[in-house]
Every structure is written in C-alpha cells, then in structure tokens.
C-alpha cells in the first residue's frame, strides 16, 4: 500500500493544472505536456531507442488480439480520492489470455486503475468509483457482488513481495484454506502445482516447511505469484512485480509471465517500458489519470498514434 500513498500524494500535487480542464480534459492536458516536454528537450534531441522485442517470445498477433474475447471491459470509469479525481473516463477492453501492460509516469493512475479491477480500492476510506467494469459481462460493482469471490477470480501480485511470515507451504495454502479446502494432501498437490507453475518448485521442494521470509527477494516474489495462482484465478493483476528485483530475477518473472498467459489473463503495471515491450501483447498508456492510448504493443511502440505517447516511450519525459 506504500505505493498507493505515494501515488496519491503525487496526484494531489498535480491538481492545479488539472483544474484548467473543464470541458475536454484530455485535450487541454495534452497540449500542456507537449509544450512542457518540448521545452525540456530544447537541446539536441535524444536518440530514439527502438524497443526490444524478444523474437523467442512472440507477442500475440494483431489478429489474435482482435479475436480475443474481452475478459474485462471497462467503460466510463471515473475514480475519486475524496475531491480529487484520479481517473477520468477510462474505456478499455482487456483481452482474454493476453498480457496487457499499463505504462505511464508515477501518479498517472495506472496502479489505481489496476486496483479497481479487483476492488482493492474498497479499503480506502474516501475513495469513490463511477462507471462500469465487467468481468465476463458481469458487473463488478453490482449490489450483490461478493468481493471475496471476485478476488478469488482476479488475483493480485504486489510491487513489494509480501509473503506471510509462515512456511512456504502455508503461504500457498492460505488462499485455498480460506476458500474452505481442508484436505492436507489436496493442499500439497495445489502447492506443488502452483510452485511449478511459478518456476520455484525445484528451488524449494525440499524445504516447504521453512519460513518464506528466508527466501531471496526474487524467490519471494515468485512465491507471491504462486500464492496468487493457488486460488485458481482467471485474471492475474501485477503491480510492478519486478521493480524491486535484480535483472536476473526480473528476467525469470518475465519468462514466467510469458508462460502464464496461455492460461491466465494478465494485467501488469510497469515503469519499465522495455519490460512492457518484452512481455505484453497490448499496452495502455496513462497520463494524469487519462488513458491516452491503448493498442497492440508493437503498434504502440513502433507507431504510436498520439504525440504524447511517442514522447513518453522515447524517453522525452516521465
């Protein structure tokens, strides 16, 4: 939740320029930034880095992406922290069994948006949501929605790995246990399957009873992914899952994301544009609470439709 507080304060600091926007916030804001970024790069233009696509891990093709059913469909989503609006009229479809990346500078609302998808924002006292979010056509915000059921279907991995101070096995067993699974043999089966899925099994199979806190940072994060998989979710939300990890661990997590997308719909928030380019099929660029542009990842990175997106991905601001 630490990220949250930080993001929140950043968006508060951003309020004055936002107030300018009255009729069409999107346009006003864009002209502002473009101007800002131009002054910033008044010197010699930085060379435009081509995004690195990994040929060993092909992204979904444009046809596949277009053909995929929308697992989550968001329309006209507005989000408020008290009087401050953090998200403006978000409209986005998240295709099934694809990786969707949210990119954008700090405080742009991407994490807030991610947390709307499993209603983790419910726990913030003065937060308010307007608009529609559909999971398989069913509204997340209906009066009879059971948040507990929702979160079993939409799992989450946090920025900072947060294993429970229990054994590795108990960490995985937590989700199934609260869901009512009592059979120890079944729980071990689930633990083995999830740890294998999270590419951690070989490293921990002989010490499932050891404390999870004894694992390295990268292992802890993979454990958190395994733990999220144990409730058998359909969607996996990842809030900067590799930002606190070293390059080797990051690579492992990215490999894992690529493997998991055959089975799960994955949404990943990342600060690292190279990472977005490497792992995602669809990319959505957020800026100051507005979804500026969303589309196939190679399209966004090679041929962005908006000047603002281009400025951000070429590193001219953010």
């Amino acid at each position, binding site marked *: *939740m*630490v990220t949250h507080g930080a993001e929140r304060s950043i968006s508060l600091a951003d309020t004055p320029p936002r107030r300018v926007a009255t009729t069409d916030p999107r346009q006003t804001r864009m002209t502002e930034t473009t101007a800002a970024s131009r002054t910033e790069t008044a010197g010699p233009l930085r060379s435009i880095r081509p995004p690195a696509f990994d040929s060993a891990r092909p992204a979904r093709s444009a046809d596949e992406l277009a053909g995929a059913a929308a697992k989550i469909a968001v329309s006209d989503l507005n989000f408020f922290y008290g009087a401050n609006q953090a998200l403006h009229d978000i409209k986005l479809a998240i295709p099934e069994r694809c990786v969707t990346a949210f990119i954008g500078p700090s405080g742009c609302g991407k994490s807030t948006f991610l947390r709307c998808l*499993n209603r*983790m924002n419910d*726990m913030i006292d003065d937060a308010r949501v307007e608009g529609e979010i559909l999971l398989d056509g069913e509204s997340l915000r209906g009066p009879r929605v059971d948040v*507990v*059921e929702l*979160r*079993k279907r939409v*799992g*989450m991995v*946090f920025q*900072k790995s*947060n*294993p*429970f*101070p*229990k054994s590795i096995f108990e960490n995985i067993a*937590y*989700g199934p*246990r*609260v*869901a009512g699974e009592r059979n120890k043999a079944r729980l071990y089966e689930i633990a083995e399957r999830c740890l294998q899925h999270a590419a951690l099994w070989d490293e921990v199979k002989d010490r499932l009873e050891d404390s999870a*806190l004894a694992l390295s940072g990268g292992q802890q994060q993979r454990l*958190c992914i395994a*733990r*999220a998989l*144990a*409730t058998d979710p359909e969607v996996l939300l990842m809030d900067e899952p590799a930002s606190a990890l070293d390059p080797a661990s990051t690579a492992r997590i990215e490999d894992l994301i690529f493997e998991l997308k055959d089975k799960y719909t994955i949404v990943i928030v990342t600060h690292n544009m190279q990472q977005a380019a490497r792992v995602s099929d669809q990319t959505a660029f957020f800026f100051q609470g507005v979804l500026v542009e969303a589309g196939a990842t190679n399209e966004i990175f090679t041929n962005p439709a908006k000047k603002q997106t281009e400025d951000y991905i070429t590193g001219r601001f953010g």
Partner: protein
Amino acid sequence: MSVLPTTGVPTTGPQRSITTPHSAGNRLGERIIRRLLRTCAIVSVLTTIGIVAVLLSESLKFFGEVSVFEFLTGAQWTPLFSPPHFGVLPLVCGTMLVTGGAILIAGPIGLGTAIYLSEYAPPVVREIIKPVLEVLAGIPSVVYGVVAVTTVSPIVQRLFGSESIFNALSASIVVGFMILPMIVSLSEDVLRSVPRDLRSAAYALGATKLDVTTRVVVPAALSGIVAAVLLAISRAIGETMAVTLAAGATPNLTLNPLESVQTMTAYIVQVSKGDTPTGSIEYRTIFAVGLTLFCITMSLNIIAQWVLKRMREQYE
C-alpha cells in the same frame, strides 16, 4: 563591482584560528551538564544494585538457618508460630492462584479489545476507548483493593458461596482489570505494527476480514501478544495493595479460588507492618520471599523482552 562579498571575514585583522586557548571539549557548561546527566543515570543503577545487595545479604543470613530445600519445597508457611515452618509453597501458590485467575480474565478480554481496536473499531470509537483504558490504568491499586472488598467480594460470596469475605477469586477479578489496560495497549501496538502489505495480500486472495484477522494478523503478532501477557503476569505477581486487602492473610496451599489465600507480596506487607523484631529469623523471611518474587518477575520480564526482540527481527 566588487567580486568579494561585502560581509564575512575582513581581509585585515588578526588571523582566525580553529584552535582555542582551552580545549573545546572542556567548556565549563558542557562539563557540568555531562556530569549531572551521568549522575542521574547512575542513581537508578546504584539503586538496583543496592536493592539486590540487601535482598541477597539478608536472604543469605536466612538461608544460613533454613535450608533452601526446605524453603522451596515445604508445604507449610508458619514462620510466626512455634514450631515455625518455612515452606514458601503456600505463598507461591496463593500468588499463582490470584495471578492465574487475573490472566484468565484479562487475557481474553484484553486480546479481544486489542483486536477490536486495531482491526474493527472505527477511529471515533478508538478515540473513546483508548482514553477510558488509560483512566483504568491510572486508578490507584488501593482503590481496586477497596472495591474488591466492598463490592466484588460480597457478589462472589453470594454467587459462589465463598465462606470468607477474603478470597482469591475477588482478588483475581480486580487484578485482572488492573492489568487489562496493559494487555490491551501492548497487544494493540503489535497488532497495528503488522505490515499493511500482509493484510492486502490476504484480502487479494479472497480472505474475509475474519480470515485476515485470525489467520494473518494475530499469528504474525503472536509473539508480541505473548510478550504483552508475560509482562502483565509479571505485573500481577508483583501487585500488592489490592491482593493484601482482597485475598486475605491465610497462607494456604490450595487451588480453590473461593478460599482465602496469602500471596508473597501480602505476606511481606504483613510482616513489615507488624511487630516482628528486626534481625530475627521471622524478619528475614521477608527478604527470602522478596528474593523469590524478584527472581520470578525478573525472569518473566527477560523472557518477554527476548520474545519481543525476536518478533522485531522477523520484520526487519
């Protein structure tokens, strides 16, 4: 335009130096303050050493006449009668009976309050309950004793048919309420210090508030809660005024809370206030009992500190 700043060191005049005629560390004011503060710190250390020394030397004289074995295993405590028996067990038993009862009352209520305050209570309610608990903690223990004798005991007598107005149960009840604020505030602190990340992780796995509380927050804070209870036990064992008034003055090796018992502390009060001649063996018993008490509470405190330290390490 002058390049040099107009303020600052004049270019002429005596050369400035960072060395002074007298050593800088020895400025008079500094020296006095340092000595004064050090004296303050030494006072408490000397007091501790002095008390332990008196306890040990007087106890040694006592144990010169009564064997340690008889003292620790004897089931009769009649030092003021003849023939005298110096078995401390009835007093230890009285203390344990009152303390055990107090913990049985304060443990569940205190833990329940702490969990409610840290996990469930809206801020407004917390703002009301916490000051009330502080008031409870601020009531002098002699007042608890009076309440025990005048109010709690008659109720206990009527409800459970206790023979004596002095009984262990009413002492347990008031001591339980005395240590309640301690258990609540210490356990609430450790519950609140469980990282929010852990709660988020559990909620994201589809846990209900009850799951999060019972399977994540309380287990993670368990060692801190144990330490809180240990410190409360130590406080209950050392409690004097309320138990002297409420529990009675009959050394009694019993586990029946309705009987009158005498605790170690109450015995010490009885002898100190009585006409026992200084230097007699009867008089020295209070040092032996005091030493026993000191050893018990000190080990509890050390264990509690150790448990707390281990818990802190877990999260760093």
